[in-house]
């Protein structure tokens, strides 16, 4: 299930809080509806075109259909698989996109497993601009 434009559409929307050199696109994968709405609203407010889905399977379908993103944010506790398994699946399918794991509590081992599986970074929830803006800036400079 994908979320509709919960925070209004891109055209005619409020001026983004940040501007980017590139047209940044994000995919947010989180089983929590509240977290999806918040994450999408934040990223959209900061000028990132964001798609939010509630499970790994839908994310994989989107990617297989050819959807491309600059960054994929993944909750570590999805129903079908954990973040590390998802990262491994994407990397073995040749997906090069930057992968960021999100978790309600920082756990060293969970982070290590995710990074070893091909993840690029790890954010402790709650999702907040102070956590994702530096990562987006780095992406935008490449």
């Amino acid at each position, binding site marked *: 299930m994908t979320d509709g434009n*919960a*925070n*209004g559409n891109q055209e*005619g*929307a*409020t001026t983004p809080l940040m501007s980017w050199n590139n047209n940044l696109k994000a995919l947010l994968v989180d*089983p*929590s*509806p*509240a*977290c999806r*709405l*918040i*994450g999408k*609203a*934040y990223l959209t*407010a900061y000028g990132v075109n964001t798609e939010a889905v509630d499970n790994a399977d839908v994310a994989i379908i989107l990617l297989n259909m050819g959807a491309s993103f600059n960054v994929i944010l993944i*909750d570590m*506790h999805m129903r079908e698989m954990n973040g590390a398994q998802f990262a491994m699946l994407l990397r073995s399918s040749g997906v090069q996109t930057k992968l960021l794991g*999100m*978790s*309600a*509590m920082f756990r060293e081992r969970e982070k290590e497993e995710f990074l070893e599986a091909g993840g690029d970074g790890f954010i402790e*929830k*709650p*999702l*907040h*601009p102070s956590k994702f803006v530096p990562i987006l800036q780095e992406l935008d400079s490449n």
Partner: protein
Amino acid sequence: MDRNQLRRQVAHMRSSLIEQHYLDQQQFVQLEDLEDDSNPNFVEEIVTLFYKDSSRLFQKIDQALHSVPMDFARLDDYVHQFKGSSSSIGAIKVKNECTQFKEFCLAGNAEGCLRAFQRVKHEHEALKRQLETYFQLRRQAGMAQRS
């Protein structure tokens, strides 16, 4: 009551909720800042989704607590998810009770888990009552704005 008085009441209640640690200033106020004319009820929408989340997870937690033997790994997973959504809306007290609950899950302490769940539900209910009043005030302030 005129618009300005209502707005002051809203601001006062927001400060009070933050001072009493029901809500995290940084998180909650930032969410309110995301509201605009095209989406004036954004925070209330999020909180409504949060209640749906909590309702779903509370049912699952209840089932796991009554499984024999108690399924601590599954419990930990559900509490972890709930902690994530609580922290996302800035619900500090609820989030802190989730942290305590997780410790009992990790320790395999059945009695502790049962007590912790009661505390989580208590804090969740307390927050829900406060937010109902808060959003009602905001709506009244909004209605006064249109008149």
